[in-house]
Protein backbone atom coordinates (compact mmCIF):
# COMPACT_ATOMS: atom_id res chain seq x y z
CA UNK A 1 0.00 0.00 0.00
CA UNK A 2 1.25 3.44 -0.81
CA UNK A 3 1.46 5.42 2.40
CA UNK A 4 -0.57 8.56 1.72
CA UNK A 5 -2.37 10.69 4.28
CA UNK A 6 -6.09 11.47 4.03
CA UNK A 7 -5.17 15.02 2.99
CA UNK A 8 -2.95 13.72 0.18
CA UNK A 9 -5.76 11.45 -1.00
CA UNK A 10 -8.05 14.48 -0.96
CA UNK A 11 -5.54 16.27 -3.17
CA UNK A 12 -5.47 13.33 -5.58
CA UNK A 13 -9.24 13.32 -5.82
CA UNK A 14 -9.26 17.00 -6.66
CA UNK A 15 -6.59 16.53 -9.34
CA UNK A 16 -8.65 13.68 -10.78
CA UNK A 17 -11.73 15.90 -10.87
CA UNK A 18 -9.79 18.58 -12.72
CA UNK A 19 -8.67 16.04 -15.31
CA UNK A 20 -12.19 14.57 -15.39
CA UNK A 21 -10.49 11.33 -14.47
CA UNK A 22 -12.28 10.36 -11.27
CA UNK A 23 -13.31 7.01 -12.71
CA UNK A 24 -9.68 6.37 -13.67
CA UNK A 25 -8.54 7.23 -10.18
CA UNK A 26 -11.13 4.94 -8.68
CA UNK A 27 -9.88 2.11 -10.89
CA UNK A 28 -6.28 2.76 -9.92
CA UNK A 29 -4.15 3.27 -6.87
CA UNK A 30 -5.92 6.28 -5.41
CA UNK A 31 -8.78 4.21 -4.09
CA UNK A 32 -7.19 0.83 -3.75
CA UNK A 33 -4.34 2.08 -1.62
CA UNK A 34 -6.82 3.40 0.88
CA UNK A 35 -9.47 0.72 0.85
CA UNK A 36 -8.49 -2.59 -0.57
CA UNK A 37 -5.98 -5.29 0.13
CA UNK A 38 -7.00 -7.25 -2.94
CA UNK A 39 -4.48 -7.59 -5.76
CA UNK A 40 -5.57 -5.22 -8.53
CA UNK A 41 -4.37 -2.48 -10.84
CA UNK A 42 -3.34 -0.47 -7.79
CA UNK A 43 -0.66 -2.98 -6.86
CA UNK A 44 1.22 -2.09 -10.00
CA UNK A 45 1.27 1.52 -8.86
CA UNK A 46 2.33 0.62 -5.36
CA UNK A 47 5.31 -1.34 -6.59
CA UNK A 48 6.25 1.44 -9.01
CA UNK A 49 6.41 3.94 -6.17
CA UNK A 50 8.27 1.60 -3.85
CA UNK A 51 10.72 0.42 -6.50
CA UNK A 52 11.54 3.97 -7.46
CA UNK A 53 11.92 5.13 -3.86
CA UNK A 54 14.21 2.20 -3.10
CA UNK A 55 16.36 2.91 -6.15
CA UNK A 56 16.66 6.59 -5.27
CA UNK A 57 17.54 5.82 -1.66
CA UNK A 58 20.17 3.29 -2.73
CA UNK A 59 21.74 5.84 -5.04
CA UNK A 60 21.57 8.47 -2.32
CA UNK A 61 19.64 10.75 -4.67
CA UNK A 62 19.21 14.11 -3.01
CA UNK A 63 21.32 13.12 -0.03
CA UNK A 64 18.61 14.18 2.42
CA UNK A 65 19.13 17.85 1.57
CA UNK A 66 16.24 20.21 2.09
CA UNK A 67 14.21 21.16 -0.97
CA UNK A 68 11.08 23.30 -0.93
CA UNK A 69 7.85 22.05 -2.47
CA UNK A 70 7.10 24.55 -5.21
CA UNK A 71 4.16 24.65 -7.59
CA UNK A 72 5.10 26.99 -10.41
CA UNK A 73 5.72 25.01 -13.58
CA UNK A 74 9.33 25.24 -14.80
CA UNK A 75 10.02 25.79 -18.48
CA UNK A 76 9.04 22.62 -20.32
CA UNK A 77 11.86 20.33 -21.23
CA UNK A 78 13.34 20.32 -24.70
CA UNK A 79 14.41 17.27 -26.64
CA UNK A 80 16.68 17.00 -29.64
CA UNK A 81 15.16 15.43 -32.77
CA UNK A 82 17.52 12.41 -32.70
CA UNK A 83 16.56 11.46 -29.15
CA UNK A 84 12.90 12.00 -29.95
CA UNK A 85 13.16 9.71 -32.98
CA UNK A 86 14.90 6.96 -31.02
CA UNK A 87 12.35 7.07 -28.20
CA UNK A 88 9.49 7.22 -30.71
CA UNK A 89 10.80 4.01 -32.25
CA UNK A 90 10.71 2.40 -28.79
CA UNK A 91 7.03 3.33 -28.50
CA UNK A 92 6.07 1.77 -31.83
CA UNK A 93 3.70 -1.18 -31.63
CA UNK A 94 5.56 -4.48 -31.34
CA UNK A 95 4.65 -5.53 -34.88
CA UNK A 96 6.22 -2.37 -36.32
CA UNK A 97 9.38 -2.73 -34.24
CA UNK A 98 9.80 -6.31 -35.46
Amino acid at each position, binding site marked *: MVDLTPEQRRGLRMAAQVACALSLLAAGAGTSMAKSAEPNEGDRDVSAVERTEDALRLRGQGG*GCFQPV*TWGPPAPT*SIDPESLASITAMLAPTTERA
Partner: protein
Amino acid sequence: MRRALLHVDTEARGRDGAPILDLRSEARARGKLVLPDVALDPDERRAIVATWRGRMVSEYASARVFAALVPQAMAAGLSARETGALAEMALEEIDHGIRCARVVVALGGEPVAPLGALPLVPTHDDACAVEGFVRNVLDVSCVAETVAVALVASEQALACCPALAEELERILAAEVGHARFGWRIVDTIVPTLPPEMRRRLGAYLVVAFREALARFAPFVTMRDASAAALSLGAPAGPGTFRVLVTTLETITVPKLEAAGIPARRAFDLALAEIQGDRVAGEKPRPRDAA
Protein backbone atom coordinates in the same frame (compact mmCIF):
# COMPACT_ATOMS: atom_id res chain seq x y z
CA MET B 1 6.16 60.14 -4.47
CA ARG B 2 8.48 58.26 -6.77
CA ARG B 3 7.63 54.57 -7.02
CA ALA B 4 9.97 51.74 -7.89
CA LEU B 5 9.29 50.36 -11.34
CA LEU B 6 11.54 47.38 -11.03
CA HIS B 7 10.66 44.28 -9.03
CA VAL B 8 14.04 42.89 -9.86
CA ASP B 9 17.00 44.91 -8.70
CA THR B 10 19.28 44.99 -11.73
CA GLU B 11 22.27 45.99 -9.66
CA ALA B 12 21.98 43.47 -6.85
CA ARG B 13 23.01 39.96 -7.85
CA GLY B 14 23.01 36.68 -6.00
CA ARG B 15 26.08 34.51 -5.58
CA ASP B 16 25.42 32.87 -8.95
CA GLY B 17 25.03 36.22 -10.67
CA ALA B 18 21.24 35.90 -10.88
CA PRO B 19 19.13 39.04 -10.37
CA ILE B 20 17.44 39.46 -7.02
CA LEU B 21 13.65 39.31 -6.80
CA ASP B 22 12.39 41.72 -4.15
CA LEU B 23 8.64 41.63 -3.43
CA ARG B 24 8.71 43.56 -0.14
CA SER B 25 6.71 46.53 -1.38
CA GLU B 26 4.16 44.36 -3.23
CA ALA B 27 3.63 42.24 -0.12
CA ARG B 28 3.32 45.32 2.07
CA ALA B 29 0.78 46.90 -0.29
CA ARG B 30 -1.58 43.96 0.22
CA GLY B 31 -1.69 44.38 3.97
CA LYS B 32 -0.36 42.28 6.78
CA LEU B 33 -1.03 38.56 6.93
CA VAL B 34 -1.19 37.29 10.51
CA LEU B 35 -0.36 33.66 11.26
CA PRO B 36 -0.62 32.00 14.68
CA ASP B 37 2.54 31.43 16.64
CA VAL B 38 3.11 27.73 15.96
CA ALA B 39 5.76 26.01 18.06
CA LEU B 40 8.56 24.88 15.75
CA ASP B 41 12.19 23.99 16.19
CA PRO B 42 14.60 26.44 14.51
CA ASP B 43 15.44 24.04 11.66
CA GLU B 44 11.78 23.58 10.82
CA ARG B 45 11.13 27.30 10.90
CA ARG B 46 14.06 27.94 8.58
CA ALA B 47 12.80 25.20 6.23
CA ILE B 48 9.30 26.67 6.14
CA VAL B 49 10.53 30.19 5.41
CA ALA B 50 12.80 28.76 2.69
CA THR B 51 9.86 26.85 1.26
CA TRP B 52 7.65 29.92 0.94
CA ARG B 53 10.54 31.97 -0.42
CA GLY B 54 11.19 29.22 -2.97
CA ARG B 55 7.52 29.28 -3.91
CA MET B 56 7.63 33.05 -4.28
CA VAL B 57 10.43 32.71 -6.82
CA SER B 58 8.98 29.66 -8.57
CA GLU B 59 5.51 31.18 -8.99
CA TYR B 60 6.87 34.50 -10.16
CA ALA B 61 9.27 32.88 -12.63
CA SER B 62 6.60 30.60 -14.04
CA ALA B 63 4.70 33.66 -15.33
CA ARG B 64 7.18 33.65 -18.21
CA VAL B 65 6.22 30.07 -19.07
CA PHE B 66 2.58 30.95 -19.64
CA ALA B 67 3.52 34.19 -21.38
CA ALA B 68 5.72 32.23 -23.80
CA LEU B 69 2.81 29.94 -24.59
CA VAL B 70 0.75 32.88 -25.90
CA PRO B 71 2.54 33.25 -29.27
CA GLN B 72 2.73 29.46 -29.56
CA ALA B 73 -1.04 29.24 -29.04
CA MET B 74 -1.55 31.87 -31.74
CA ALA B 75 0.67 29.97 -34.15
CA ALA B 76 -1.21 26.77 -33.38
CA GLY B 77 -4.51 28.48 -34.26
CA LEU B 78 -6.13 28.42 -30.81
CA SER B 79 -9.16 30.62 -30.23
CA ALA B 80 -8.75 34.14 -28.88
CA ARG B 81 -10.45 33.00 -25.68
CA GLU B 82 -7.96 30.20 -25.00
CA THR B 83 -5.01 32.38 -26.01
CA GLY B 84 -6.21 35.13 -23.68
CA ALA B 85 -6.59 32.60 -20.89
CA LEU B 86 -2.86 31.88 -21.12
CA ALA B 87 -2.07 35.57 -20.69
CA GLU B 88 -4.27 35.63 -17.58
CA MET B 89 -2.46 32.59 -16.21
CA ALA B 90 0.83 34.49 -16.47
CA LEU B 91 -0.64 37.28 -14.35
CA GLU B 92 -2.01 34.76 -11.85
CA GLU B 93 1.47 33.34 -11.35
CA ILE B 94 2.79 36.80 -10.51
CA ASP B 95 -0.10 37.23 -8.08
CA HIS B 96 0.83 33.90 -6.46
CA GLY B 97 4.41 35.11 -6.09
CA ILE B 98 3.15 38.09 -4.11
CA ARG B 99 0.84 35.89 -2.00
CA CYS B 100 3.81 33.68 -1.15
CA ALA B 101 5.85 36.80 -0.32
CA ARG B 102 3.16 37.81 2.21
CA VAL B 103 3.50 34.43 3.89
CA VAL B 104 7.28 34.84 4.02
CA VAL B 105 6.79 38.18 5.81
CA ALA B 106 4.20 36.68 8.18
CA LEU B 107 6.75 34.03 9.13
CA GLY B 108 9.33 36.68 9.94
CA GLY B 109 11.35 36.40 6.73
CA GLU B 110 12.27 38.82 3.96
CA PRO B 111 10.62 38.23 0.57
CA VAL B 112 13.89 38.74 -1.25
CA ALA B 113 15.72 36.00 -3.15
CA PRO B 114 17.80 35.37 -6.28
CA LEU B 115 15.53 34.85 -9.26
CA GLY B 116 17.76 32.05 -10.50
CA ALA B 117 18.17 30.65 -13.99
CA LEU B 118 15.31 31.33 -16.38
CA PRO B 119 15.55 28.74 -19.16
CA LEU B 120 13.60 29.62 -22.28
CA VAL B 121 10.40 27.81 -23.10
CA PRO B 122 11.28 25.53 -26.04
CA THR B 123 9.72 26.25 -29.42
CA HIS B 124 10.26 22.67 -30.69
CA ASP B 125 11.36 23.75 -34.14
CA ASP B 126 11.48 20.14 -35.32
CA ALA B 127 7.67 19.97 -35.01
CA CYS B 128 4.70 21.82 -36.52
CA ALA B 129 3.13 24.61 -34.47
CA VAL B 130 0.36 22.39 -33.07
CA GLU B 131 2.65 19.55 -32.05
CA GLY B 132 5.17 21.91 -30.46
CA PHE B 133 2.45 23.70 -28.50
CA VAL B 134 0.87 20.45 -27.33
CA ARG B 135 4.24 19.15 -26.12
CA ASN B 136 4.61 22.19 -23.88
CA VAL B 137 1.03 22.01 -22.66
CA LEU B 138 1.43 18.35 -21.72
CA ASP B 139 4.47 19.23 -19.62
CA VAL B 140 3.06 22.40 -18.05
CA SER B 141 -0.63 21.57 -17.50
CA CYS B 142 -1.02 17.80 -17.58
CA VAL B 143 2.12 17.06 -15.57
CA ALA B 144 3.26 20.05 -13.47
CA GLU B 145 -0.04 21.81 -12.80
CA THR B 146 -2.07 18.64 -12.26
CA VAL B 147 0.47 17.56 -9.64
CA ALA B 148 0.33 21.09 -8.19
CA VAL B 149 -3.43 20.73 -7.71
CA ALA B 150 -2.91 17.53 -5.71
CA LEU B 151 -0.17 19.11 -3.59
CA VAL B 152 -1.86 22.45 -2.90
CA ALA B 153 -5.21 20.80 -2.13
CA SER B 154 -3.60 18.45 0.38
CA GLU B 155 -1.67 21.29 1.97
CA GLN B 156 -4.74 23.50 2.14
CA ALA B 157 -6.51 20.81 4.17
CA LEU B 158 -3.70 21.01 6.73
CA ALA B 159 -3.42 24.80 6.96
CA CYS B 160 -2.85 26.09 10.48
CA CYS B 161 -5.47 28.84 10.27
CA PRO B 162 -8.22 30.27 8.04
CA ALA B 163 -5.96 33.07 6.79
CA LEU B 164 -3.38 30.65 5.37
CA ALA B 165 -6.13 28.33 4.11
CA GLU B 166 -7.61 31.31 2.24
CA GLU B 167 -4.27 32.10 0.58
CA LEU B 168 -3.91 28.47 -0.47
CA GLU B 169 -7.52 28.40 -1.67
CA ARG B 170 -6.86 31.34 -4.01
CA ILE B 171 -3.71 29.71 -5.35
CA LEU B 172 -5.47 26.38 -5.73
CA ALA B 173 -8.33 27.92 -7.71
CA ALA B 174 -5.87 29.27 -10.27
CA GLU B 175 -3.85 26.04 -10.42
CA VAL B 176 -7.08 24.20 -11.18
CA GLY B 177 -7.63 26.51 -14.15
CA HIS B 178 -4.06 26.01 -15.36
CA ALA B 179 -4.39 22.23 -15.25
CA ARG B 180 -7.87 22.24 -16.75
CA PHE B 181 -6.59 24.23 -19.74
CA GLY B 182 -4.28 21.36 -20.64
CA TRP B 183 -6.96 18.73 -20.24
CA ARG B 184 -9.23 20.73 -22.57
CA ILE B 185 -6.44 20.64 -25.17
CA VAL B 186 -6.07 16.90 -24.63
CA ASP B 187 -9.81 16.30 -24.98
CA THR B 188 -10.33 18.47 -28.06
CA ILE B 189 -7.12 18.61 -30.08
CA VAL B 190 -5.11 15.48 -29.33
CA PRO B 191 -7.69 12.95 -30.62
CA THR B 192 -7.63 14.73 -34.00
CA LEU B 193 -3.86 14.36 -34.42
CA PRO B 194 -2.42 11.60 -36.63
CA PRO B 195 -1.21 8.44 -34.85
CA GLU B 196 2.47 9.09 -35.62
CA MET B 197 2.23 12.55 -34.03
CA ARG B 198 0.59 11.09 -30.93
CA ARG B 199 3.39 8.56 -30.70
CA ARG B 200 5.95 11.40 -30.84
CA LEU B 201 4.01 13.13 -28.05
CA GLY B 202 4.42 9.92 -26.07
CA ALA B 203 8.16 10.04 -26.72
CA TYR B 204 8.26 13.61 -25.50
CA LEU B 205 6.46 12.51 -22.35
CA VAL B 206 9.30 10.15 -21.47
CA VAL B 207 11.51 13.19 -21.02
CA ALA B 208 8.80 15.30 -19.33
CA PHE B 209 8.00 12.52 -16.84
CA ARG B 210 11.67 11.89 -16.16
CA GLU B 211 12.30 15.59 -15.45
CA ALA B 212 9.37 15.70 -13.03
CA LEU B 213 10.55 12.55 -11.24
CA ALA B 214 14.10 13.93 -11.00
CA ARG B 215 12.81 17.23 -9.64
CA PHE B 216 10.91 15.44 -6.87
CA ALA B 217 13.57 12.77 -6.15
CA PRO B 218 15.20 14.70 -3.27
CA PHE B 219 11.98 14.37 -1.24
CA VAL B 220 12.49 10.62 -1.00
CA THR B 221 15.41 11.04 1.36
CA MET B 222 14.03 13.98 3.33
CA ARG B 223 12.76 13.33 6.82
CA ASP B 224 9.05 13.63 7.53
CA ALA B 225 7.95 17.01 8.87
CA SER B 226 6.07 17.45 12.14
CA ALA B 227 2.32 18.09 12.08
CA ALA B 228 2.94 21.67 13.20
CA ALA B 229 5.41 22.24 10.37
CA LEU B 230 3.07 20.67 7.82
CA SER B 231 0.32 23.08 8.90
CA LEU B 232 2.56 25.93 7.77
CA GLY B 233 3.59 24.40 4.47
CA ALA B 234 6.68 22.33 5.25
CA PRO B 235 7.56 19.66 2.66
CA ALA B 236 6.01 16.29 3.55
CA GLY B 237 9.22 14.43 2.67
CA PRO B 238 8.70 11.07 0.94
CA GLY B 239 4.93 11.67 0.88
CA THR B 240 5.48 14.50 -1.58
CA PHE B 241 7.24 12.13 -3.99
CA ARG B 242 4.41 9.60 -3.59
CA VAL B 243 1.82 12.24 -4.48
CA LEU B 244 3.76 13.00 -7.66
CA VAL B 245 4.07 9.36 -8.75
CA THR B 246 0.48 8.51 -7.86
CA THR B 247 -0.91 11.57 -9.65
CA LEU B 248 1.04 10.77 -12.80
CA GLU B 249 0.32 7.06 -12.72
CA THR B 250 -3.37 7.14 -11.85
CA ILE B 251 -4.56 10.39 -13.43
CA THR B 252 -2.22 11.82 -16.07
CA VAL B 253 -1.20 8.54 -17.72
CA PRO B 254 -4.69 6.98 -18.11
CA LYS B 255 -6.19 10.25 -19.36
CA LEU B 256 -3.49 10.62 -22.00
CA GLU B 257 -3.81 6.95 -22.95
CA ALA B 258 -7.54 7.53 -23.49
CA ALA B 259 -6.64 10.33 -25.91
CA GLY B 260 -4.40 7.99 -27.91
CA ILE B 261 -0.97 8.96 -26.52
CA PRO B 262 1.22 6.00 -25.43
CA ALA B 263 1.68 7.51 -21.98
CA ARG B 264 1.83 4.22 -20.03
CA ARG B 265 4.88 3.02 -21.90
CA ALA B 266 6.37 6.51 -21.65
CA PHE B 267 5.90 6.52 -17.88
CA ASP B 268 7.43 3.06 -17.54
CA LEU B 269 10.46 4.17 -19.55
CA ALA B 270 10.84 7.30 -17.42
CA LEU B 271 10.57 5.27 -14.20
CA ALA B 272 13.13 2.78 -15.49
CA GLU B 273 15.53 5.59 -16.22
CA ILE B 274 15.04 7.17 -12.80
CA GLN B 275 15.57 3.74 -11.26
CA GLY B 276 18.95 3.60 -12.96
CA ASP B 277 18.47 2.21 -16.44
CA ARG B 278 19.48 4.57 -19.24
CA VAL B 279 16.80 4.89 -21.90
CA ALA B 280 17.74 7.87 -24.00
CA GLY B 281 19.80 10.91 -23.24
CA GLU B 282 19.64 14.55 -24.16
CA LYS B 283 22.02 17.34 -23.50
CA PRO B 284 21.76 18.70 -19.95
CA ARG B 285 19.98 22.05 -19.70
CA PRO B 286 19.75 24.69 -17.00
CA ARG B 287 16.97 24.10 -14.50
CA ASP B 288 14.61 26.69 -13.11
CA ALA B 289 16.00 27.77 -9.76
CA ALA B 290 13.04 26.80 -7.63
